């Protein structure tokens, strides 16, 4: 069966980028937007077709096989290290294909309305195209190097989009922060790749995931601090993933990234790019699972769980609606990491499937939340929840869709979030009770903070608005509705048949107990939020005052940013860079100048010899002659 047409899925967005980029400025109004949207539309169509063909229309018995749909040699370093660019189709890449293209398409559509009044619209859509291309290249990569390349490219496009309002200092700062933090992580990522591939002898995923082959080809692997080189490689790679997926402690860039236009946040910082880390771990899952009995995987689980709790706590205190969503994203990604972390392979592969499932559903409802938030911001021209209230009267569509999303994320059946999250918790329960407990609590917190913003925005007392808020135009509402439907129904998809750790159907049994538990905690959260925020009251204020310093700490995100600020400013710049610069200018360069100056000084010291008195000269000659005689005598004897 011929899959080579799939090359067009990434190429079309690239096309839109190139055209929008080259004819930047000469492009008629709106043109760029529709260009990008239609390009994405086509690739979306193509990827749905691909998914359909792959899952339903391919005669296969047993597991779904991996398909390399197309590839070309990019750089033939050595026969071992040949870097290919290619398209690699397997269940997760196809799932990501669906997610990326669909969300990107909807965001394009939405942006046409959202950015209608913006000056640099063309630039915006060009970057959007670039991002979609890079993200698709990333998910379709057949080898680590391609992954890394597009990994960098999404980083850059995210940088450019966050810095879209480049004359706004905060936006610039956020953009730089995002790029540099992720770049820092990528440094380790690259080292990890090099280290790992030195032993695996190849960049291709199938070779990398084939741990037994590596072990027997290398004989004994060097062990450092009780871990094999492979595990170290995987841990380094995971640092890269953690950087992109804003796992603690590399999460600091994500909240600031909300400086970008809201659709961008929806696309990059909710649905697609930030889950790249999860995707990476899933890609290398066999390796993670096999090396040192899945030690690296435990790290993943711990980091994920901690981040999810950490973020959820912070999210409860933020007043900026987008920041709340940002932290919630971080928390949800934590869930996914946990899912992978607790998973086994084959029949124990529940966590894997669950995590992928959650990735899928989360993309839907989190994108919806952001776009909804976008609609609100568009209406009231402010990010702050203080400026919102009882908007349900003015913007019904936004209200309904937002509510659906909130229910979904809080894990209330029958909405999508319920199924995926519940599966993760089940997997955790089987693996490790502590992790399960944390996840369970986090679920409650999630429900609470989501409904906190829901009630604050759509209920509460009416605020005075500059001009009456209203639902946005069709291009913006349509995506909301589509996504709402998705996040309502996606839960019923039979994911366990499609996306599993070993590509075979995973038999799951619905566990009523844990389901009930998670629903319960969700409801509790919602109810608390209802009591506190349904009708405006002083109680939240009082409570936060009573909590005092604790509350402040949380509100300030546990001062992590301040810590990093200190490290970079005080240590790296003041203690390292400045001394080096000084050393270079004064010591190294000084030495060079010193040599020159000394020469000149010597010459002015000895100038006295040439006194001008010929009798002195004569004396000098005499001395010279005698000196020569003595010297020679000394030699002759």
């Amino acid at each position, binding site marked *: 069966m011929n899959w080579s047409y799939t090359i067009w899925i990434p190429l079309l967005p690239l096309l839109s980028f190139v055209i929008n980029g080259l004819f930047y400025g000469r492009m008629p109004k709106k043109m760029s937007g529709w260009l990008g949207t239609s390009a994405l539309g086509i690739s979306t169509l193509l990827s749905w077709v691909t998914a359909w063909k792959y899952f339903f229309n391919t005669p296969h018995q047993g597991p779904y096989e991996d398909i390399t749909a197309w590839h070309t040699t990019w750089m033939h370093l050595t026969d071992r290290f040949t870097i290919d660019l290619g398209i690699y189709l397997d269940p997760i890449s196809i799932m990501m294909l669906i997610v990326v293209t669909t969300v990107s398409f909807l965001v394009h559509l939405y942006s046409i309305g959202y950015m209608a009044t913006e000056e640099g619209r063309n630039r915006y859509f060009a970057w959007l195209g670039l991002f979609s291309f890079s993200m698709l290249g990333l998910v379709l990569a057949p080898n680590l190097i391609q992954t890394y390349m597009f990994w960098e490219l999404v980083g850059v496009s995210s940088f450019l989009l966050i810095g879209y309002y480049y004359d706004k200092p905060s936006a610039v700062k956020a953009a730089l922060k995002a790029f540099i933090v992720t770049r820092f992580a990528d440094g380790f990522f690259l080292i990890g790749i090099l280290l790992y591939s030195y032993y695996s002898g190849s960049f291709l995923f199938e070779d990398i995931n084939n741990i037994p082959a590596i072990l027997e080809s290398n004989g004994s692997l060097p062990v450092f601090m009780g871990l094999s080189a492979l595990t170290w490689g995987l841990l380094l790679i995971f640092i890269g993933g953690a950087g992109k997926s804003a796992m603690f402690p590399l999460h600091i860039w994500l909240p600031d990234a909300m400086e970008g236009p809201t659709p961008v946040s929806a696309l990059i910082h909710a649905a697609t790019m930030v889950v790249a880390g999860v995707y990476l771990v899933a890609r290398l899952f066999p390796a993670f699972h096999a090396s040192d009995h899945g030690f690296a995987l435990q790290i993943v689980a711990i980091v994920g769980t901690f981040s999810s709790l950490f973020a959820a706590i912070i999210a409860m205190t933020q007043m900026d609606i987008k920041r709340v969503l940002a932290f919630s994203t971080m928390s949800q990604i934590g869930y996914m990491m946990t899912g992978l972390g607790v998973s086994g392979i084959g029949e124990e592969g529940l966590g894997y499937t669950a995590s992928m499932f959650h990735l899928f559903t989360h993309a839907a409802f989190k994108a919806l939340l952001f776009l909804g938030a976008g609609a609100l911001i568009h209406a009231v021209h402010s990010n702050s929840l203080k400026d919102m209230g009882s908007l349900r009267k003015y913007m019904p569509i936004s209200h309904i869709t937002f509510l659906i999303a909130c229910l979904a994320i809080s894990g209330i059946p029958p909405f999508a979030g319920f199924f995926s999250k519940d599966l993760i918790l089940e997997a955790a329960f089987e693996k490790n009770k502590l992790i399960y407990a944390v996840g369970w609590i986090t679920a409650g917190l999630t429900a609470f903070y989501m409904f906190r913003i829901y009630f604050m925005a759509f209920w509460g007392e009416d605020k005075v608005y500059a001009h009456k808020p209203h639902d946005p135009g069709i291009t913006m509402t349509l995506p909301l509705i589509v996504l709402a439907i998705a996040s309502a129904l996606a839960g019923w998809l039979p994911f366990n048949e499609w996306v599993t750790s070993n590509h075979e159907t995973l038999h799951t049994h619905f566990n009523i107990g844990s389901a009930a538990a998670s629903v319960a905690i969700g409801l509790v959260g919602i109810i608390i939020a209802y009591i506190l925020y349904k009708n405006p009251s002083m109680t939240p204020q009082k409570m936060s005052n009573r909590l005092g310093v604790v509350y402040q700490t949380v509100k300030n995100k546990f001062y992590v940013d301040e810590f990093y600020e200190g490290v970079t400013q005080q240590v790296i710049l003041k203690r390292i860079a400045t001394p080096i610069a000084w050393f270079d200018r004064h010591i190294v360069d000084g030495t060079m100048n010193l040599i020159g100056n000394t*020469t000149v000084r010597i010459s002015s010291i000895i100038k006295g010899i040439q006194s001008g008195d010929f009798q002195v000269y004569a004396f000098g000659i005499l001395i010279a002659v005698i000196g020569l005689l003595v010297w*020679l005598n000394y030699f002759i004897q």
Partner: protein
Amino acid sequence: MTWIDTITLMRNEWSILIIFLLLLATEILLDDRRQHQLIPLAIGLFAVHTIGSFFPGKAGELFGGMYRTNDLLHFMKAILNTAVLIILFQSYHWVKTELAPHGRAGAFYLLLFAVLSGMYFLISSGDFIMFFIGFELSTLPVAALTAFHLKEIRSTEAGIKLILLAGLASGIMLYGISLMYAVTGNLYFADFLVNTDHETLLIFGLVLFLSGLAFKISLVPFHFWAPDVYEGAPIAVTSFLSVVSKAAAVFILLILLLSVLPELSEIWKMILYILSVLTMTVGNLFALRQTNMKRFLAFSSIAQAGFILLGILASEAVGASTVVYFILIYVFTNLAAFGVVQAIKDATGKEEMVDYTGLYRTNPRLSLVMVLALFSLAGIPPMAGFFGKFFLFLAAAGKGYYTLVLIAVINVTISLYYYLLPVRAMLLRTSDAPLAHIRSGSMMRIGLILCVVGILILGMYSPLYDYILSLTNEWLQ
């Protein structure tokens, strides 16, 4: 030995003698007001003489070996002639305006040619008597030339310093020769050192003797006179001193060491080694902070002498031929520099480096000549100086003098610094009161063009080097 031989072998000497007599006669006949007519005559005659001197002659001895010559010596004399000819071109304007009116042009030329003939005899001397005569004849008149500006105290001072110190040097040298004579009992070069072992007395003699020559080549620490004299003397004389007499002295040193005193080589190699290190280093260090162009060039030429010694140390054919080659290049290079100094002095009477500031803007051609000359001295390709230096180093390295070469190349770097100083003044800087545009006379132009052509061609044109090498090989058989 027939009378015909004496003519063919000594043709340079004869022809210069004829020119000498002709000039003398005409000077006596001409009255002082028409003296300037002497100048074209002198230059014309000498030009013919120079061209003639390039034809290879034949090798042989005269006067029982007191005089000997061969193609290499002919070629050396030709080099000297070329140098003098260029100097004549460049000094034309000066002689015409400064000397001729006072009826002293003739004297100038006569002295100059006398010195030159002295150098001929010096180079092709076959024994120490002839050597001594040639040596003095090529020194004493120069003192007179140096003091030629009767009204200038500096000129006179330079003359006195030269005559007295030269006297001292020759005294030392004579004493050295006498000591060697005491050992060998023989003054002929041909069989000078036969059946004599190296007695201490002989070595003492050698040292004193070499000191005399070192004085003439102005090797540190026998160089003290050079800068003062160069600065005081008229530019024509300075260039003569720094080029011609230095060249002659180097030639005779080369001949003596390689063909007469090879048995003592380990002794004189030790001496030359230390002298060369001192000369390069001290010369450079002094040149660093000179502001007067003549004095600056004086020290630069001292430093250059240090490099030449590398070639002599290398000895054998390659070394010797490289030295001759380097001298040839050095003649053109140095005379180019002095020519520009002369031209500017003639027009404006200025010879300080600061006066050269922004020269390029007003006199691009002159300053380009100067730049080329300086780059050639500094050994920058594709100027000839690069090749000369490179081959010297190559020859020295061939004998394993790596340390010496290292010292030399470091000195080259130092020298580059001060050679760039005039370039900086002329090109990089602009002055609010630059020298006016100078229209130098045709003679000066010919002189400068000759030099530039030499600088650009001599290096690249390899057959020349092969030719010199072949001559040297013949000689050393």
